[in-house]
């Protein structure tokens, strides 16, 4: 069938985003909604290969230090101003440097950014940086209109309430607590696109009600995380319902169990190994996550580049767990387990793990917290075991090394090396691998680091989460990139 114009998509955003200016806010719901308003220089396929977006092509110098991007010359902002190389320089060098911690992680490797002409930008790195090309996703390196932001207090800018991007959809209205509405950008630079007239992002705080909204036909698309996992099989069986797991390769969320390496029983490697053996991760995947997702081999997920396939997996083996505990002389000291306060599935999972651990003789006390308390406790390292999940961002240097580098131990954040793992060799290997060139060299280094981690078990590797998107089958071309619905509505059309 040929794509057709027309129609509005109703979908759900959960939770309600705090704001829509990407780059200033990077949480998941903001990315999902604003990914349709803003764009980056590149997009990525589901195999994480770069695709042109605002940049049509790009090249790298021999030494891997200078990258040149050629921009489209027919792009204009939603307010009609043309988009130029100056915007790129402003966004990367000024806006993101000031506001955006995830961009800063890449920017620290960049020496300079220059507009060669109106439609050419040159990035110079201080040394080659492996994941450079994969960092241009819209949510990380968002293009921000220089003419509206330059010289203002970014956070107080009046346009924050009415975001202006270059994307296929324009911001229309936001009725807080109810709906965010986007409308078609009629001046979009790609002919014919987008097909839809608009998108309504409904805001429904209760999971059960969200499922009802899909059932009674109010919404057509349930992006990942919007309905409880238990509802997915039931909803997937409904008429005219399709499901895809594609679209999250870039983020590839990886569930982990923080284990405090500093003190208590969890400071002992054998205890941590015992925990890995005690947990029934297959059960969790099959019962709690509807069989979606993937039990990881070790620290690197299957979607991550450079996974070492030869590692010895940690099987569910309570006997072995008990042996390890005996060996270390575990005395029944109580350990505290913090579940992730992100919904029922996570709570159930903590209950299952607690039960698994009790069955091998570990005394566990679950300490529930709300989001605020959870952040605080992890930031203060006040825990023994704690659930979390982290995005892998397509490259170990972006998404994986941050968890294990000892330079990343810093009180106050729940997202760095919270477990307090310190291993010089690991630091060395990760650092070398980030800047090694070309990829073969990186692979060797990463394989080695994985072997060390497999033995030390700094954290528990629980599950590479499969986050399914449910939608009516007549919604076509919903997921066309590695960041899924975050930028997917551009190509979507309705076969009605």
């Amino acid at each position, binding site marked *: 069938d040929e794509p057709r114009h027309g129609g509005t998509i109703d979908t759900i955003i959960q939770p309600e985003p705090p704001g829509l200016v990407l780059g200033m806010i990077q949480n998941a719901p903001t990315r999902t909604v604003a990914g349709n308003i803003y764009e980056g220089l590149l997009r990525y396929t589901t195999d994480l290969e770069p695709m042109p977006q605002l940049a049509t092509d790009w090249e790298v110098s021999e030494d891997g230090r200078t990258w040149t991007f050629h921009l489209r010359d027919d792009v204009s902002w939603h307010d009609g101003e043309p988009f130029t190389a100056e915007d790129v320089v402003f966004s990367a060098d000024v806006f993101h440097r000031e506001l955006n911690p995830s961009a800063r992680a890449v920017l620290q490797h960049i020496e300079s950014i220059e507009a060669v002409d109106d439609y050419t930008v040159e990035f110079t790195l201080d040394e080659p940086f492996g994941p450079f090309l994969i960092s241009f996703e819209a949510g990380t390196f968002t293009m921000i209109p220089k003419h509206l932001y330059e010289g203002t207090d970014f956070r107080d800018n009046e346009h924050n309430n009415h975001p202006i991007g270059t994307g296929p959809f324009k911001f229309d209205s936001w009725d807080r607590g109810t709906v965010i509405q986007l409308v078609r950008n009629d001046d979009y630079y790609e002919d014919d696109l987008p097909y839809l007239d608009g998108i309504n992002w409904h805001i429904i705080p209760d999971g059960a009600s969200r499922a009802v909204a899909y059932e009674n036909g109010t919404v057509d698309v349930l992006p990942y995380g919007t309905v*409880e996992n238990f509802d997915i099989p039931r909803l997937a069986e409904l008429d005219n319902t399709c499901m895809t797991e594609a679209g999250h390769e870039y983020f590839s969320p990886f569930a982990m169990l923080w284990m405090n390496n500093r003190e208590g029983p969890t400071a002992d490697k054998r205890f941590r190994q015992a925990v890995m053996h005690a947990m029934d991760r297959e059960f969790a995947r099959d019962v*709690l996550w509807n069989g979606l997702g993937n039990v990881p081999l070790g620290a690197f997920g299957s979607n991550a580049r450079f996974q070492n396939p030869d590692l010895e997996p940690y099987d569910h083996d309570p006997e072995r767990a008990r042996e390890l505990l005996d060996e270390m002389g575990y005395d029944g000291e109580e350990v505290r387990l913090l579940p992730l306060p992100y919904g029922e599935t996570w*709570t*159930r999972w*903590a209950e299952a793990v607690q039960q698994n651990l*009790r069955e091998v003789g570990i005394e566990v006390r679950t300490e*529930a917290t709300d989001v605020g308390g959870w952040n605080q406790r992890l930031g203060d390292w006040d825990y023994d075991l704690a659930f979390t999940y982290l995005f892998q961002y397509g490259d170990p240097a972006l998404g994986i090394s941050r968890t294990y580098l000892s330079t990343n131990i810093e009180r106050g954040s729940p997202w760095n090396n919270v477990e307090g793992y310190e291993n010089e060799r690991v630091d060395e290997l990760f650092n070398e691998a980030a800047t090694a060139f070309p990829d073969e060299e990186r692979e060797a280094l990463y394989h080695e680091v994985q072997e060390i981690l497999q033995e030390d078990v700094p954290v528990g590797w629980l599950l590479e989460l499969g986050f399914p998107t449910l939608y009516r089958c007549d919604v076509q071309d919903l997921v066309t990139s590695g960041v899924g619905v975050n930028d997917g509505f551009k190509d979507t059309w309705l076969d009605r």
Partner: protein
Amino acid sequence: MSFFARFAQNRGALIGLIILLTIIAMAILAPLLFPESPWRMVQRPFLPPMEVDGFPLGTDTMGRNVAAGLMHGAWVSLLIGLVSTTVALAIGVPLGAIAGYYGGLIDDALMRFTEFFQTIPNFALAIVLVAIMQPSITSIVLAIAIVSWPPVARLVRAEFLSLRNREYVEAARLVGQSNTTIILRQILPNTLSPIIVLASLMVATAILLESALSFLGLGDPNVMSWGYMIGAARTVIRQAWWLSFFPGVAILLTVLALNLVGEGLDDALNPKLARERS
């Protein structure tokens, strides 16, 4: 007529008492009938009621025995109800008594203090308190107690205000009894019946409040309670009705029973009725 005979005249109250005793028996017998932890995953998930022997109420999302959860949960729900009510009484009764007996500035100060707690809606305040203290059975009990004492204080104060000028109190003052003795021996015993009636309703409300907190994910994750069971079951209400149905009915019956008992006590303790009958 004896107190119990008067109580038993109210058929509803008697039914309530029987339900309540059954629930207490459930709570006591739970560890005997279901010695295994109610958290154990013992069968396949989502087993409907009466399908497999030993699982009369089926299993939950993770294959835990619903019947075991219900029995063990009775204990926690009752405990939360009783302890939080006791704590609320321990705060509210003395405060109300002092405010009502002494009146004047003391009364003013104590009542303004009480008002502070009433300007934030009960449930919202309970949520804030549990969030502050972090969810655990202690913090839940405390939070419920803290939001429930103001009405107690007000009731006791009102009673004291009306009783402190009764002739028998004046008579006691006249023969030289001290204020403490008057408060404790003359007035307090005469405020007991409204307090007992209110307390029986507070136990009921506390059970509802705990379940509502659990529903929002603010329950104690280490203990099985009915509120927890409903909260956990709400996401699967469509697939497995029995998961929220049975604990829902259990809460309903308990609250109902406590109410009936409260009404029965109200009748039996009502001095007016007692006087008419005597």
